């Protein structure tokens, strides 16, 4: 293994990447390029692989390039295996292997040259060729240029986007030619931008117009030094920069708002179940956080049962988490809360005990370690509006989910028989009972509902954060705060409180840092409660 001092700077690598980009752009002449630019060398497969057996990543890069340039028919598979960390050499031997499945401790392996089954190997017997970040980028590029998809519009577009800021004197002409031959408008657009940027660097003020309002940071970075002078070009560049900056500010605000709402949606989700059990029933449920945890673990369990289908598992986890947590809620209500009617503070003590038990139960059953919940494809990545504004899909999903849960809950309380009964029991228990409402059943269902919603919060949180025994604990203080801030017993209050706390927090964060932002929010809530002792949506009216 080499030490870092032997490695020179990265410049050559970057140059090679540009070449790759260019060849990706030229869809129609791929075969020609690959044969003319990188003259193919035919050499013996063993020698090609042998070259990979080095601790020096640079040498490995050269070897990988050699494989790509060779006419060995296995080269794509080799590069893919190298990228996946599955290509290796027999330890104390001469054979090369590809590991076909590396999930267990005993791996099924095949011979890398003949692709014949070679039995099993373990870490002890197979020395896997390691790659690092730079090598990974390089191999991905090589694979792309080798693959059939190379040259299609998507990859041309991607390559064109990457060219922005990378054009230099020696390749400017060829890029310009490519741009003229390019048929797709979508691909032409980034090429125009890339060329305009290059032209501006060469002193062409006209080209600036193409860049106006473009939010790409590479443009900003390139323009900043140009704008520093006194020349007319610099002045013009400054105005372009100002335009970009002011446009950016608005998108930044929209971005912050989204961050705030998504942070708020988590608070709302975590608190809304509590708004029911605590706000409506007056039960101080310290085990609320653990019910959230149960929802998250349910998601994990369902995902374990449906390997490879995280999307389906997540969809099933929504009813699953609701039902499991709800069932726990009903059991808690039937066995404990029921006997503590009218003694809200004692429910605090009992549910605190329950939370200890549930936490330790999870530790004993599932281990104290966090569990891995994978997000389905459609919850990964971001919805990129432009360079300055993007909505990460998992956060967006949780935000929409939160609003859906809220709407469903609101409709339930507003329009259904259960909702009516719940409101009746809350307002006047004796009267409701006299009118034939089965108050005990309503209590059970209300608590079950609150617990179920907590379970839903757990399902959502499993997409964002740890699934572990401490999951619930970290939300309990915030949840109570949100409910109280919004006004106990008011679902709308919980929504508004959660969302506004989220937004305030995210607005403050860039200024004062996350810790101070949190402190300021807490102190703010304390002071707000002094002003409105019953929260945002205080129940008004004569109280006697």
């Amino acid at each position: 293994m080499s030490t870092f001092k032997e490695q020179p700077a990265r410049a050559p690598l970057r140059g090679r990447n540009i070449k790759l980009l260019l060849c990706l752009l030229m869809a129609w002449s791929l075969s020609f390029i690959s044969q003319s630019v990188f003259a193919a060398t035919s050499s013996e497969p063993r020698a090609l692989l042998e070259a990979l057996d080095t601790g020096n990543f640079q040498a490995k890069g050269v070897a990988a390039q050699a494989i790509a340039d060779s006419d060995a028919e296995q080269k794509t598979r080799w590069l893919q295996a190298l990228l996946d960390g599955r290509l290796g050499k027999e330890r104390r031997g001469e054979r090369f292997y590809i590991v076909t499945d590396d999930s267990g401790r005993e791996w099924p392996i095949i011979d890398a040259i003949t692709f014949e089954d070679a039995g099993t190997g373990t870490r002890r017997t197979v020395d896997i060729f390691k790659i690092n970040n730079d090598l990974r980028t390089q191999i991905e590029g090589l694979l792309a240029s080798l693959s059939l998809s190379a040259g299609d519009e998507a990859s041309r577009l991607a390559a064109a986007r990457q060219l922005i800021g990378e054009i230099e004197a020696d390749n400017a002409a060829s890029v310009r030619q490519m741009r003229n031959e390019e048929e797709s408008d979508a691909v032409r657009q980034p090429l125009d931008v890339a060329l305009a940027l290059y032209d501006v660097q060469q002193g062409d003020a006209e080209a600036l117009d193409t860049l106006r309002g473009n939010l790409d940071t590479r443009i900003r970075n390139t323009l900043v030094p140009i704008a520093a002078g006194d020349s007319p070009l610099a002045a013009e560049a400054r105005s372009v920069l100002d335009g970009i900056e002011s446009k950016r500010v608005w998108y930044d605000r929209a971005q912050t708002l989204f961050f705030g709402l998504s942070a708020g949606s988590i608070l709302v989700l975590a608190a809304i179940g509590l708004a029911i059990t605590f706000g409506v029933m007056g039960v101080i449920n310290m085990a609320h956080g653990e019910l959230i945890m149960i929802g998250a673990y349910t998601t994990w369990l369902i995902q374990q049962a449906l390997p490879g289908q995280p999307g389906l598992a997540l969809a099933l986890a929504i009813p699953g988490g609701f039902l499991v947590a709800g069932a726990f809620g009903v059991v808690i209500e039937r066995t404990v809360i029921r006997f503590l009617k009218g003694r809200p503070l004692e429910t605090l003590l009992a549910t605190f005990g329950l939370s200890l038990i549930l936490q330790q139960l999870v530790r004993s059953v599932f281990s104290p370690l966090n569990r891995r919940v994978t997000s389905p494809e459609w919850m990964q990545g971001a919805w990129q509006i432009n360079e300055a504004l993007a909505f990460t899909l998992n956060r967006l999903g949780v935000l929409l989910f939160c609003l859906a849960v809220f709407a469903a809950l609101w409709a339930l309380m507003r329009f259904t028989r259960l909702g009516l009964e719940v409101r009746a029991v809350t307002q006047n228990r004796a009267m409701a009972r006299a009118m034939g409402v089965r108050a005990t059943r309503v209590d059970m269902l209300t608590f079950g509902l609150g617990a179920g919603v907590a379970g839903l919060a757990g399902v959502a949180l499993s997409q964002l954060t740890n699934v572990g025994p401490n999951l619930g604990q970290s939300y309990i203080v915030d949840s109570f705060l949100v409910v109280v801030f919004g006004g106990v017993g008011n679902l709308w209050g919980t929504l508004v409180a959660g969302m506004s706390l989220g937004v305030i927090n995210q607005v403050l964060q860039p200024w004062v840092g996350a810790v101070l932002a949190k402190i300021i929010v807490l102190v703010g809530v304390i002071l707000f409660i002094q002003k409105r002792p019953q929260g945002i949506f205080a129940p008004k009216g004569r109280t006697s």
Partner: protein
Amino acid sequence: MSGLESARFGRLRELARPDRVFDFMAPAQSPVDVRHGPILYLEDVSVSFDGFQAINGLNLTIDDGELRCIIGPNGAGKTTMMDIITGKTRPDTGQVWFGSRHNLLALDEPQIANLGIGRKFQKPTVFEALDVTENLELAMAGERRVWKTLLARLDHEGQARIDEVLETIGLNDERYRLAGVLSHGQKQWLEIGMLLMQRPRLLLVDEPVAGMTEPEMHRTAELLTRLAGQQSVVVVEHDMGFVRSIARQVTVLHQGSVLAEGSMDAVSSDPRVIEVYLGGDEESA
């Protein structure tokens, strides 16, 4: 006042003669200034809750030493009016003066109470974890500051006053029982007793005879009329018979403002009153 009426109240007036009033019932020194007219003065008071106009341009004047009954159907704003006078609710507009010196809107509940306005609630609220004597002791006029209450001891005079009030409210035998275990009627009496201990200039009494038996009602009527003269008393009541038995001056509230005012007879013959209250809502009384 008609002759018929004076005959009816003759017996009560006899009881209420100033020399028959026990001195322990005399109001404590109150700074209220009544030289220039009424003891309580409400002008154009309005308040609304969430769009509901509970009190609407209410004007009311209570003279020093007067016994006034306030009647009105449910939701007429009787309790809200009491809340405004005692500082629990702030009106949106209007003025409330206690005597000619004290603007009650600038004061909070304890300050108003210490000026000499006592209040008995509709639902008897006594301190259930304390016994009867202790309830009276807490209500006793005197020092309210934290440090003083820490060091306070029940002196001989105070004990004597408690004994007297206990006698008056008929709870002598229950004096060491917890207030929480008293019957509803006993709680009403205890609360009245607490009012007496406070020795206020102005008593606001909200439905004093609810849940009382006939003899108890008589005793209450007797007590209230006896107090009037020395103190001003405002009684909110549903029970018409009871109102009739004590009232000299009656105010009818309807939808947050005064509908009629005058003697019981005059009021009860007012067609508007008959329409909104006596006619439609008789059974609820």
